[in-house]
Structure formats: C-alpha cells, structure tokens
C-alpha cells in the first residue's frame, strides 16, 4: 500500500510539473517551443522509482526479496528469438515469484517485457507485451492473484545491453520483474 501511495504521489507530482511546464512555455516562448517531461521521480534511472518502492515493500514483507540466495533474486527471464514461451530453465524462477506473491497478497509486481532491436519498433512493442503477459499468466497459474501483477512493454526501447550481436540480443529478449 505504501508503494501505491508513493507511486500515486509521483504521478501527481509529474503531472503537476508537466502542467506547470507547458503553461510556462506557452507564455514565454510562442515561436518554437520545446516541452520537457520532468522526471523527478525516476531520478534519471529506469525503474528507479519502482526499485525504491521495492525496498520499502520488502522491508515490510520480511526481506526474502533482498536475500541474494533466494530464487527470488532472479528477476530477469530470458526468451528465445521471436518467442514468448517461458523456457524450462526459468520455471523455478517463475514458481518462486508466484509463491512469494501468493504469500504476500499486498505485494505488487510489474512485469516489464522487452524485445531485441531487430525488426520494426512497434511490432517489437507488441512482442514485448506478449512476453510480459506470458509471465503474468504463469504467475497467476501458480497462485499469484491477477491484481498483484502489472504489465508494461518497452519493446526494444530499453535494451539491457547495447551490442548488435546474438549475444546481446539474448540478453535483451527478456521480461523483468520489478517489485
């Protein structure tokens, strides 16, 4: 719950800043205007806000999420090329997260789906969503409640690594669990 409130505050702050920003722009510079998306909550990092929330949540839930030896420490699930099937080597990971969510019904996780850079961007956005939904489906099947799992696709817009080879692509075709 704490997490939700924080998140809500962030959204409100962000939209207030946006509103302030655009009205300022309209007044001061009518010729060619830039708009800027202020992103204070993220402090310049992808998922920084969500990770901050994770720390809060896990402290309340007993720290299993922070145990580096727990299967919960694995937060990234990799996929084969053009596939949204969860590979056998990630079954245990998904099962552990499902069990954790079932045991902590107030915990919310976001599953972020990603694709490698090959092909068109919008199609990859859809592929990323397929991956995030596949993980969600499996989590629910194994006991988590659907309301605990948010999904978002970033397509190829947020690669984990920058390379343009198969080794890099393997690391970019993924779903990330963000508590």
């Amino acid at each position, binding site marked *: 719950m704490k997490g939700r409130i924080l998140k809500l505050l962030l*959204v409100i702050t*962000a939209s207030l800043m*946006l509103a302030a920003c*655009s009205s300022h*722009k*309209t007044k*001061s*510079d*009518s*010729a*060619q*205007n*830039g*708009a*800027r*998306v202020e*992103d204070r909550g*993220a402090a*310049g*990092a*992808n*998922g*920084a*806000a*969500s990770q901050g929330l994770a720390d809060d949540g896990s402290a309340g839930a007993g720290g299993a999420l922070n145990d580096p030896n727990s299967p919960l420490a694995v937060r990234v699930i990799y996929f084969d090329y*053009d596939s949204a099937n969860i590979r056998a080597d990630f079954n245990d990971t998904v099962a552990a997260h499902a069990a954790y969510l079932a045991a902590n019904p107030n915990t919310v996780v976001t599953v972020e789906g990603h694709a490698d*850079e*090959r*092909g*068109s*961007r*919008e*199609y990859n*956005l*859809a*592929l990323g*969503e*397929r991956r995030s939904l596949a993980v969600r489906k499996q989590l629910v099947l194994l006991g988590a409640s659907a309301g605990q799992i948010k*999904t*978002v*696709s*970033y*397509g190829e*817009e*947020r*690669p*984990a*690594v*920058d390379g*343009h080879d198969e080794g890099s692509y393997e690391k970019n075709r993924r779903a990330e669990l963000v508590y």
Partner: protein
Amino acid sequence: MKTIRKFAPLRRLLLAALALMVAAPLALAQEAELKFTIKGGNKSALPIAVVPFASVGDTGNTDIAAVIRSDLERSGQFNPMQPGDMPSQPSSFTAVNFKDWRVLGQENLVLGKVMASGDGGYVVEFRFIDVFNGNQLLGFRIPTSADNMRLTAHHISDLIYETLLHRKGAFATRIAYVTVERASAKDSLYRLQVADADGYDPHTILESKQPLMSPSWSPDGAHLAYVSFEDRNSAIYLQDIRTGKREKLVYGPGINSAPSFSPDGQRLVVTLSRDGNPEIYTYSLASRQLTRLTYHASIDTEAIYSPDGRQIYFTSDRGGGPQIYRMSSDGGTPQRVTFNMGNYNSRARISPDGKKIAIVHGGKGGYRIGVLDLASNSFDVLSDSALDESPSFAPNGDMIIYATMAGRGTELAAISVDGRQGPRMAVQRGQVREPAWGPFRN
C-alpha cells in the same frame, strides 16, 4: 535560447540582443545538429552549375548557392559542379559566356544575387538558364529575411527540381525524429526533434528520460502525434509544434501506440491492447471516441491510412510471422498484401500517390527497406545494411528516409525510390532514429 543556427551569426546577434531584453530565456539543452554526408555518386545524375550568388550590401552569411547545390545533390538526381571548377561566376544573364559552359557539358546554369532591401530584409534574385538554347527557363525575385534565407534557397531548389524533372520538389520540408543519448542501460535522454529536411535548424519539441517513439505528422504539418512512456506505460500524445502545447490523448492498460493521422486530419489510427491483445482502433479527434477495427488473437499494429482515406494498411502476424494486411478504413475482413516475400514484412508506409508501400523486410541479409508496387506486386529491396527500419516517404514520393545502423550507432539515411543513394545524417552525440518526413509547407 535554442534557435541559434551555426550558419547565421547575424541571427545569433539578434538573439543575444533579445536575450538581454527578455528576462527569462528557457534553459533548454543545446541542440544536437544533424550532420549529413553523401556516399557514392550517381552516374546518371544531371549536371548542373549553381554559381555562387552575388551579394549587394550586407546580406548575411547564408551561402544560398551552396544550400541549393546541397539540396540538388542530396536528391540523387543531380550532380552539381563545384564552384572551383566553374569557368566564371556570372550573376546576370548578360554576363554569361554560353560557350564556356557548353564546352564543359553544363547544360543547366543557376545564378543570382542577394540584395539588402533597406528594411532589414533581403531580396533574392535568381535565374535558371538553359545553356544549350541560351535562354532563361525561370527568373524570380523573392523577398525574404535573415531567418528565412535557407528556406528561400530550398524553395529555389524546389523550382529547379520541378522545372527539370516535372515533379514537385520536397526540399522546403521538415523531418521529425527521435534522438537518444544513453549514459547507461538505465539512464537515457530521449528527444523528439523537428529539423529542416537537410538536417539544419533542429528544435527539440520534447525531452524525456523515458522512451519516446513513433512520431507522426498531422497532414497540415502543425502537429505531431507520438508515443511517450513518461507515465511508465505507453501513451499517445498530440503536440502543437509551434506552441509546444501538448495533450495526452489515448492511454490506459496495455499498449497505447503507433499513432498515424487520417488524410483529412480528423482521426488517428492507433494500436491498443486494452482488450488483451494489440488491435487496431481509430480515434476521432472531434468526438474523442475510439472505434475498434480488428478482432484477432494475433498482433495487429503499425496501421496507416491510404492517401484517399479509404483503406488501412497494417502489420499482423495472424499468418505466423509479421506481414502487411489491408482492410477498409471502417474495418472488415483484412486481406494479406505481402506474399512470397519472405517471412518478415512489417511497418508499411504508403507513397503519396498510394501506389507503393515501403516496408521493413527481414531476410538473409538482415532487415532492409523494400518497396512493393501494389498494382504489379513487384518488390525491390532498396537498402543494403543489416538493421534498417522506419521508412518514411518524402511528400513528393521521390525519396525514402529511414534509420540505419552505422559504426557509432543509428543514423538516418535517404534513398530515392529508384534506388539512388541519398545523404546520411548523424547526430554528434547519441543515436537518431524513427525519421518521419513532414508534409509540404504552405
């Protein structure tokens, strides 16, 4: 102030003066200027000599002839003579020694002058001369200003292009694109920019630490629709380019993406997955109503209208891999368009005459830009790199701009529809991608 152009010191002075008078200039990041280079030559390109324009009075620093030469060369259709190779540099018709130019095989000659008009403005006079017949094909005197000097040069390029090729030129147009500076996997800066079609005068219209994608021009060139992740999910925004005023149009659970305008500017066609799966919808800008057009458990996305507004082309993997489909713009049963062209064909953009689509074609060599003639079904792969994407037609249909992988990251490249290589454009820092060629400017 962010409008400083490298090639306009006069303007810079004016802006500096303005900055002294206006109390609170916006502290916007310095613009990354696009740099373009031209690789290779085109043997069949038309020779043309654009003589440096004479200057009468203080006329600023814009080299109009150089802008015209660069425009014509970038089109792939012309081979402009270098000023150093010119036998003379006349600025009036009577000063032309036709024999000198004929000997060099130069049949097309452009000359002119820039004059200060006394009221702070300029008049650009130019003549386009047929050397072989010794007569003037075009002669114009165009009033302009320091700010519009390059635009005037682009208009002259348009006139020359149309006179010789009998097709409208698209030099006086703009492009939108996304740049990314990536400090680390979790720290990136995305910018949506609009620049002249030759990469000059870039303006950042939006800056975000979350991804920006899929810019799409309104038919009148006044607005851009695009996707922003600033609220930690994709949402479709509409922004007035001149005022910067923006509006969050379509958002909700799942994907809210791939906006593209109808030809009448009244609606957007978009991809939403709020019903559990990416489907094509239209969004009416007047009524704010969404209308769902596709019903299939596959991915349906990347929709665009045909120029007559009657049909919608989109990508679907309902047949296995991604292919291009077409349906009526009010829905109905989609028909597959791409056959026997491999198992990856996506993100169609349609030519302004509605006769061709440019697509991302995945094959053995990677992902390249191909053009399919819709009537004859003939298909040509135009580009030759491994990771080409995001094709966009010039408003005259003669060129396609797209994103390609280069040594340091992604660049923009242009190629003529008949396969002549055009310029490549890169930003000084970071990546540039998703070019969208704007409409003709009125």
